[in-house]
Every structure is written in C-alpha cells, then in structure tokens.
C-alpha cells in the first residue's frame, strides 16, 4: 500500500546546469536588451528553482503521490466533504481541447458550445435548488457564501435597510466558513443555539430576530447530518422579520430529487460542485460554488451570466448586478465535469445518489451506535456524528481514534466538528462505496473501540503503518518553517 520511503525535497535534487525541459530556439531577430528594458527593472538575483531532469521530476512526484491517500486509494469518509468517486471519463472530457484551450475573451460566436454548457448547467442547478437563477462564478463554497451575503446586502440596501440589518444568524453547529463569510461583509454574527433534537432552537430564534436581522445561514441537513423538521417555521420567522435565508449546500448530496432548498424557504443556495457533483477535490481544490437565488435577488447577481437570445448564447449582465467576485466566469473546467456528471445521471440517477448515500449512512450509524456514543438517536441523512466521549473517559481522544484508523488504510472521519458534539466524529460514507467497504470500516471502528478500552496506549501512539508517525503540530506552529532554504 503506502511506501515509507521519505522523498527528498525537489530542491535537494538540484544539480547546477541540469535541465528538464527545453523551449524552442528563439526564432525572431533579437533586439538588444537595453532597448527593451531599462537596467533598473532587471532581476539581479536568479530565483533558486530546482535544476532537475524530467525523469527526476516524474519520480519525485510519483514518489510523493505514493505517500498520499485519495478516493482512488481507499475509503475516505470525511464528513461534510462528500468524498465520492470521481468518474474518470469526466477527466477526459474536461481535457478536450475544445474546452481546455478556450480563451475567456474569445468572441461569443466561437464559444457557443461552452456557453451552451454553462447555460444548461445554470438551469439544472436552478432546478435542483428550486429557485429562479444561478451564477457559476464563485470558485468554492465559501466564495459562494460570500457572494450570497453580498447579494443580501445589496437587497437590503435597495430597501434602505442595510445600515440597520447588521446581524447574521448562524447556528452553533455551523461550519466555520459561515461566520467567517459573514465577517467578510461586515455582518455581526449571532449564534443560534440548537435544540435537543439537533435542529435550530425555534423559540430561541424567535427571540433573536428583529429589524437588525439581515438573515440566517443554514445547511439542511445540518452538520449533524440531521434534517431540520422545523425548517418551514424557521423560514417564516426569518422572512417575517424581513431577513433572508442562505442555504449552505455542502450537504446537498442528501436531498437531490427529494426536496429543494427553494421549497424549504431559502432565498440563496450554494452548491459545492466538488462535493455533490463529484468533481475531484485535487488535494484541496479547485472547487466551484455556484449560487442559485430566488426571483427577488436575481437582478443583483454577479455578471456576466449566460442567456439565450435568438437561438444564440450570449453574455448578459443582470440589471442591478453587484459586479464580479472573481476574474472571468468561474472555474469552467470544474463546471464541465459537473455538467457531465448531471448528464450521466439524469433525474432518477441523482435521486438514486441521495437515496443510497442516506441508506449507507444510516447503516453505518446503526452498526456503530453500540460502540460509540450517538448524541442524536434518529434517522440521519447522508452523514452522522458520533461522540468519542466514552473513549475519552478511557483516556483515548477522538484524535487518537482518527490516527488509529489510518493504520487500516482508511481516511478518518472529520473530527472535532461540529463543535456542539463533544469529541465529534463525523462520518460520511457516500453512495459510491461497496457494502464490503462499509463493513470493513465497521470492523475497524469496533476494533479501535475494543483497543481503547483494553490497551488505550496502543491507540494513543497511533498511527504505525503510515509513511510517517504522528507529526508534531505544536512544533510547526511554534517555530514556523514555511519554505526550504539553501544550506549556506
């Protein structure tokens, strides 16, 4: 499986004068440098890039890749991140030169295929959200959140209420990007408590809204993997107070074809195409975070959007557009993969995705409920949260459980999130795993629970079979070494 051979830094392989790539000879007549660039603009010190051959580069990165876990390597039940299988054909599709070699400023008549794809994707996402219009511009979920909140401000501003509506309500179970995005638009964050069933505490919410409320950010199912039964009530409370509802679509893998955020009462929805629509996570990105909005917000969307006029696809700016949130039109290469994913599934296929994701999660949850604490005993959606409280009393932290799982060739679940569950372990199996994989995970978790009770030290010292043993986070933060430096 994983090799333990350490890989030197690419800089440590460098030999003066070695080259891995050659550009063609310069074929135009040369103009003397002094005629082109004043001396003071010239670089004095050559940047210390490595001097390596192509085979060294290939072996270096191949060696590094073998130190890494991915969905292609093994199970990756990282809650909230939807680490499902990423279809290979979509990689081939995204690399077709007719997509990958387009310049963003090409005339519309030369990019009708790309515009058609975007137009269709806008409409598919609008339908899945149950809303009115979609922009594909945001580069990730958090970027979608930021964009959505900018739209909220624009909406309240036009009503003359922006200076008064300064509070963004965020549940205590929310993902960190929600409050951080609110901060990016100068909203004051107010935390809404959760109730005993894991949903928004409706009574508390009632007491928190008012003329100062700009809106609320929710995900449903929420980060506990639970569908909030009171969502219609919550929507009414917010709307009655003059606020808007933002839907963090990180958990949309549970709901496709079953329920639409628009019908729950949401005004703005982002989708993480890298989660629900299976575009590869790439070691941290690129993602894509399109947002769909209700009719009353669509004129504020960032531009341009693709629209259709006389059978032609054209760029168009919404009438009261807030502007733009990035350069060009979005992570188009990611959009191509998501479009292909939707087309390969169709309406029934997407429903099967959610259906199976929910079935797998419930199966795992019930298999593990005797060995770990289950804080909310009800059907979960596509993921669930366990607590390692019992193990903590045995001297084993959730972090230790996570590290021990690595020895089984499995990525650990998300840990210590959501914050409202003590020693949280958030498990999201996804629909693309086999029953055998799920059962093997159950076995591993049960083994670890036994170990925690009988030989906690074994768990505390984990992992053992990984390329490196447990790494010292504190040291890294105390004495930051953030780059290689040549030895003098």
């Amino acid at each position: 499986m994983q090799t333990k051979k350490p890989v030197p830094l690419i800089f440590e392989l460098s030999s003066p004068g070695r080259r891995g790539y050659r550009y063609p000879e310069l074929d135009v007549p040369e103009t003397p440098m002094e005629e082109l660039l004043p001396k003071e603009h010239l670089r004095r010190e050559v940047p210390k890039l490595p001097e390596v051959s192509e085979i060294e580069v290939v072996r270096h990165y191949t060696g590094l890749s073998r130190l890494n876990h991915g969905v292609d390597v093994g199970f990756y039940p990282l809650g909230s991140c939807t680490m499902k299988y990423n279809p290979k054909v979509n990689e081939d599709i995204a690399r077709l030169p007719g997509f990958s070699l387009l310049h963003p400023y090409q005339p519309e008549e030369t990019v009708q295929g790309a515009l058609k794809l975007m137009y269709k994707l806008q409409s598919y996402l609008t339908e899945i959200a149950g809303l009115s219009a979609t922009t594909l511009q945001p580069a990730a979920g958090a970027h979608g959140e930021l964009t959505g909140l900018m739209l909220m401000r624009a909406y309240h501003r036009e009503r003359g209420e922006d200076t008064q509506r300064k509070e963004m309500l965020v549940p205590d179970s929310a993902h960190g990007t929600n409050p951080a995005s609110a901060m990016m638009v100068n909203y004051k964050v107010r935390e809404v408590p959760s109730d005993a069933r894991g949903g928004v505490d409706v009574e508390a919410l009632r007491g928190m809204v008012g003329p100062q409320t700009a809106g609320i950010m929710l995900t449903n199912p929420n980060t506990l993997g639970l569908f909030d039964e009171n969502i219609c009530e919550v929507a009414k409370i917010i709307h009655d107070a003059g606020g808007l509802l933002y839907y963090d679509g990180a958990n949309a893998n549970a709901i496709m074809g079953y329920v639409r955020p628009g019908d729950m009462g949401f005004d703005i929805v982002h989708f993480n195409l890298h989660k629900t629509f299976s575009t590869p996570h790439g070691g941290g990105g690129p993602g894509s975070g399109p947002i769909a909005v209700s009719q009353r917000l669509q004129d504020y969307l960032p531009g341009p959007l693709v629209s259709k006029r006389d059978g032609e696809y054209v760029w168009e700016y919404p009438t009261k557009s807030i502007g733009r949130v990035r350069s060009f039109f979005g992570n188009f290469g990611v959009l191509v993969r998501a479009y292909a994913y939707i087309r390969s599934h169709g309406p029934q296929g997407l429903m099967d995705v959610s259906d199976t994701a929910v079935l797998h999660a419930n199966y795992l949850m019930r298999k593990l409920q005797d060995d770990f604490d289950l804080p909310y005993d009800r059907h979960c959606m596509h993921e669930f949260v366990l607590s390692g409280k019992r193990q903590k009393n045995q001297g084993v932290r959730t972090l230790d459980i996570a590290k021990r799982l690595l020895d089984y060739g499995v990525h650990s679940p998300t840990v210590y999130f959501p914050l409202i569950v003590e020693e949280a372990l958030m498990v999201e199996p996804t629909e693309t795993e086999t029953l055998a994989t799920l059962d093997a995970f159950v076995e591993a978790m049960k083994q670890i629970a036994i170990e925690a009770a009988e030989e906690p030290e074994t768990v505390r010292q984990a992992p053992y079979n990984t390329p490196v043993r447990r790494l010292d986070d504190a040291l890294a933060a105390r004495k930051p070494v953030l780059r290689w430096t040549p030895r003098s």
Partner: protein
Amino acid sequence: MRYIPTTSEERQHMLDFLGVDSVEELFDAVPDRIRTEKPLPLPDALAEAQLMRHMKELSESNVSCEHLVSFLGAGSYDHLIPAVVNHITSRGEFLTAYTPYQAEISQGVLQVIFEFQTLIAELTGMDAANASMYDGATSLAEACLMACNVARRSKVLLPETLHPEWVDVVKLYMENQDISVQMIPWNRETGTMDVAALHEDAAGDAACLVIPYPNFFGVIEDVAKLSRWIHDAGGLLVTAADPVSLGLLEAPGAFGADIVVGEGQPFGNTMNFGGPGFGFFACSGSKLIRRMPGRIVGETVDTEGRRGYVLTLQTREQHIRREKATSNICSNQALNALAGAVHLSVIGPQGLKDVAYQCLQKTAYLKSQLRDIGIQAAFSGPTFREFVVQADANWDEVNKRLLDHGFLGGLPLGERFPELQHCVLLSVTEARTKDEIDRFVHALGGLC
C-alpha cells in the same frame, strides 16, 4: 446506477438491518408539504459512450486555441506547458485527495504545497507564501484586506492601470467591508500610473498602494519610486505580479513589496475559458505572515524524529477562529498549484529565464513589425509580453476578419477605457512562432 455499487440484495440487507421498508422512511423528517413530487426536470441519463459523444459535440462547437493562433492575453495566456504536468496532476493520489487534514497519510500533498510555497517565495523574493487562492483577482482583494488590518487604515489606492476585472473584484470586496478605494489615474503618454498625481496627502491615510507589475497595458511601472512614496506615507506596497515576467524583471521583494499576489495560470494550467488557474499570495515579516489568508504548510518532525509536513498557523483560519478568522477561504486551488509547481520545477531557473526572454523578444518583434506597417504602439513605456496599439480601425470588425484567417486578435479597450477608443491590447507568448507573427502582421496590414 453507474457509480453506485450497491446491489438490490445489498440494499435489502441494509434495509432489513435498519428495520425499515424503504429508504423513503429514512426521510421522515422532511415535511410532506415541501417534498418534491415530480422528478427533477433534467435530461435522461447518458451512458458513457453517449456522454462522450455529446461532450465532444459541445466541445467541437467551440473554436479553440488548438486551431486558432492567439494574440489575446489580458489575464489568460496561451503558454507552452510541458507534457509531464498533466501526467502528474492526473494521478489519482493527488487528484482525489482533499485538504490534507490527516497529515500522516497526506505527506504527498503537504510536501507539494511546501515546495510550492518555496517556489512562489523564490519567484517573488518574499519570505513566505500560502498554499494558493482562488485566482489573482481574489488574491489581490485579500491582500488589500490584510493591508488594512495590519496598517489599521481603511483606504486602498488602486491604479486604473490594473486589470479592470481585478478593479471590480477589489472594489466589491472593499465596499462590503466599508473600506474606501481611491483610483489613481494614469498617464496617456507612458501608459503608467500618473506619478505627478500622487500627492503626499493621497497616501496619508492609505493602507496600501497596489502596483500591477507589469500593468494591464503590459507596461512596467516605476516601481522604485512608487515603493518609496507609499512607504514614506506609512502604507504597504502590494504588488500584483505576472509570474512569467519575474524570470526577467526585478523581484518585488527586492524593491520593497510587503505583499505580492498574482495569477499563476501561465504555469502549468491551460486557459480553461478563464478557470481554474490559481492565485498566489506571498508576504514578508512574521507580522504579515501570521495574518495571511488560506492554508499554510510547515515543516515539523514525527515521533521518531523524521522530517514531515503539516498544515500550520491554523489559528488564523475559519475552522478555528470562525468570525475572527483572517479570511473565509477553505477550499483553494491546490491541484492547479501542483501544476504550477511541476511546471516551474521541470523548466528550472534557465527555463524561466528563457520563457520570459522569449515573451519579451517576440512581443518586441510584433511591435516593430506593426510599426513598419503604420500601426503604432499607444504608449512609450517599456513593455513585457503585452502592449497596446492604436489604429484608426473598428477592432471588433478587424477581429472578426482575423478569425477568418485563423487568428484570435487582441482585446479592444474602448469599452472600458473611453480614451482608448481605437486601441487594442495584444499579447505574444513564447508559444508564437516567427511565422505566425509574420502572417498575423500581414493579415492585419490588409485590414487596418
């Protein structure tokens, strides 16, 4: 379904274990009145072969730069990309991993980022860099926010010579944090910031000055002078650098930049109709480093003393600090940054110099050939891989005709810059050959 491995027997096995009759029952928390009754109005599923045929049709109804010879730049560039890049970024271990939260099984991605940070720091002449941002424009917006936080001021100086879309993005981000943006006019003669317009008092309460390097018109600003001016006024210097140009141009760190950002697409990433590429973000000094947005990887050791890498300085980040974080960024552009790192590693310092030199020379060649047929450069300032020309022509029309000749012409500037009504921004990378340039000049000669 294609990617769902669960058989009907296995489904039944799980349902039996759960004691429910159908998956429907698991959705019991969804109120009936909001359930979707009808199937989503989406087209029916396609098998792989059908999907491929459909996608090929779509892609082939575009005319791409596989067939067009491009002289279009303005933020997205047709550079050569070594073949090895795509092979590395296609490896499933990189492609299908996520943010390296579990460091012990993510040393591949972590070391890649550590090397990437080093490459960006070297390129820009700065102390440290982060793991990537969404793109150049958002990276710049975050740099301005960081400058305001560090300088405890709430005004940003933006030159009109910055890419107009980047101006839009920065303005929108600043407006939402109640930070004012003062635009700095430019000189019609040189195509650079109007240094004469830079009064002492303008800089007085500014958190930072942004220098595009080279600027949107391809022209190189008077960086030394601007750097002195903003620092004298107690503000920070933010440089928005074209990374290719840094093979030849002085590193921003050397003329005193505090933060350097930019768009990394030219290294390792095809144009992709504008994305994904990657934004880079570098700065110097621990005060700034500890306020950087985004992921940062640091070196450490494991329990047996072996060198290893982890995500570090995380107390800046949203998952720890929530509304007190330095940014809301979570997912970034890691795979595109990997592409950039592979590209820079395989070309090395000499390759970097070569590519920059060729851009400079080929741009100069096109400029002189056009001059010979009466199409003049619009500005006197020195340029790198882009320049503006003016001619009494309707450039939209000219570009249409150029397409018939297989050329992607430059970007007409009149819409965004009324004073540049008859001007167009042309770009020449190392990927263009002398023959292509000559044919382009010939075609233009017949049209202008």
